[in-house]
């Protein structure tokens, strides 16, 4: 049997020119940015002993400190939960308006997306500083910061999910004379609900970690204690705070995995 004729493959494709080219460019960019910013790996290596010294001190957690941080840790979780919920709730209408398969008006869609980009550009630390100045020291500033931060992030995650849905049910609902809102309620939401829950929990996890940092600026929660322990060089206490945060993150992660399995 004669060999079937295989179409000719150009040499650029045969030797993966594009892939190799892009990889080389990426490495060149990395090296160049390291040189230009003066980030020096040898400094990191020269001072690594100090890093280990610190780690040594942190490896003896002051367990007695656990009692003190339970209340602020609780406050941190409440802040994260409130901020994430408010942010995610606001994100739902915006993500629907930003999805290219639902909104055909390109001007409106781009306006919404520009607004969302703008919100995501605001650094959370800057927002926390501003809101502490406005609302005073305490968890209100933290909650508002987390809500805005979650809103920006979740909106993008949500509209990317919406853009992957099956459009068939939408056509069916349209064909029976459904209004826009009914269409979204019956054909869009059931398709995205489980991913929404999953992203909500992911954001909650990020917010628990973020709120520890926000506490630094006086935005409430466990961050205040983190700052205090570091300021007093009480690394044993720092270790307890980090471990406690880890426990919370692990619990949320477990919950998220469980819910995703159940809802799928």
């Amino acid at each position, binding site marked *: 049997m004669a060999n079937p004729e295989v179409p000719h493959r150009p040499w650029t494709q045969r030797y993966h020119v594009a892939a190799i080219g892009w990889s080389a460019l990426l490495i060149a960019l990395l090296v160049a940015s390291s040189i230009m910013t003066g980030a020096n790996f040898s400094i990191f290596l020269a001072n690594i002993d100090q890093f280990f010294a610190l780690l040594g001190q942190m490896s003896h957690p002051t367990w007695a400190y656990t009692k003190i941080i339970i209340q602020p840790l609780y406050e941190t979780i409440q802040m994260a939960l409130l901020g994430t919920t408010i942010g995610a709730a606001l994100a739902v209408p915006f993500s629907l308006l930003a999805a290219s398969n639902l909104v055909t008006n390109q001007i409106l869609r781009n306006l919404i997306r520009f607004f969302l980009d703008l919100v995501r550009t605001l650094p959370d630390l800057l927002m926390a500083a501003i809101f502490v100045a406005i609302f005073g020291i305490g968890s209100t500033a933290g909650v508002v910061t987390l809500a805005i931060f979650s809103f920006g992030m979740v909106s993008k995650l949500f509209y990317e999910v919406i853009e992957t849905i099956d459009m068939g049910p939408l056509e*069916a609902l349209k064909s029976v004379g459904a209004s826009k809102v009914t269409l979204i309620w019956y054909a869009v939401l059931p398709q995205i609900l489980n991913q929404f829950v999953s992203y909500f929990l992911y954001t909650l996890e990020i917010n628990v970690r973020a709120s520890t940092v926000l506490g630094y600026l006086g935005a409430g929660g466990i961050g205040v204690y983190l700052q205090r322990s570091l300021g007093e060089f009480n690394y044993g206490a720092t270790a307890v705070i980090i471990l406690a945060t880890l426990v919370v993150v692990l619990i949320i992660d477990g919950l998220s995995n469980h819910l995703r399995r159940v809802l799928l």
Partner: protein
Amino acid sequence: MAATQPATDSIISFRHVNKVYANGTVGLKDINFDIPRGQFLVVVGLSGAGKSTLLRTINRLHEISSGEIQIDNEAISAYKGKALRQLRCHIGMIFQNFNLVKRSSVEKNVLSGLVGYYPTWKCVLGLFSAHDHQRVVQALDRVSLTPKIFARADELSGGQQQRVAIARTLMQDPHIILADEPVASLDPRTSKDVMDTLKRLNREDGITVIVNLHSVAIARQYADRIIGLRAGELVYDEPIANVTEANLDQIYN
């Protein structure tokens, strides 16, 4: 309505209908024909001949570029908002891929056929009348799927999903059913189930049924009349009595 009593008994009329897509592709070219009330009409033609486009111009899922389509002797091109939704209320549609909301229950999918009849807030809250809940059971009974009422749509086989889609359409109490390749993704036996169900609705309820098919064999078995499209043009139109293998071939050449 009395003033616009049907002059003829055509339920749908196409008058010089043209459709040109934004990129210049011709979808439909000067289509003229009438569909009598209660007919089982099959549209055949190659993929891309304009069958789906033709079907979707009837419930305005696709807009036409020029010409006129009349339903019950009323031009439908100008319908907007509520009037358009009301038009769609009475036109059922069946799709090749069933287009059920897979993660919702069979009951909710069937109920969704009613949303054109209810105000939005009642749909969102799921406030359907007890009578309509009863009708869901009856509709499912007609497609022999009552035991599956609380199952999730994606737990059903393809043929069962298509029957749920038919039950959804029944809730609309339609005068017209449009079916776009309803059996293209089904095996021969379930295809027969689905086509038999459509035929029964046509005979028993007097619903006008328009089906797109690429299988000429199935078309000849069920149609009262076959029309053929080629490159957006109506090239064939015969009552089933006059259809022969030889003259059907002209659609494909």
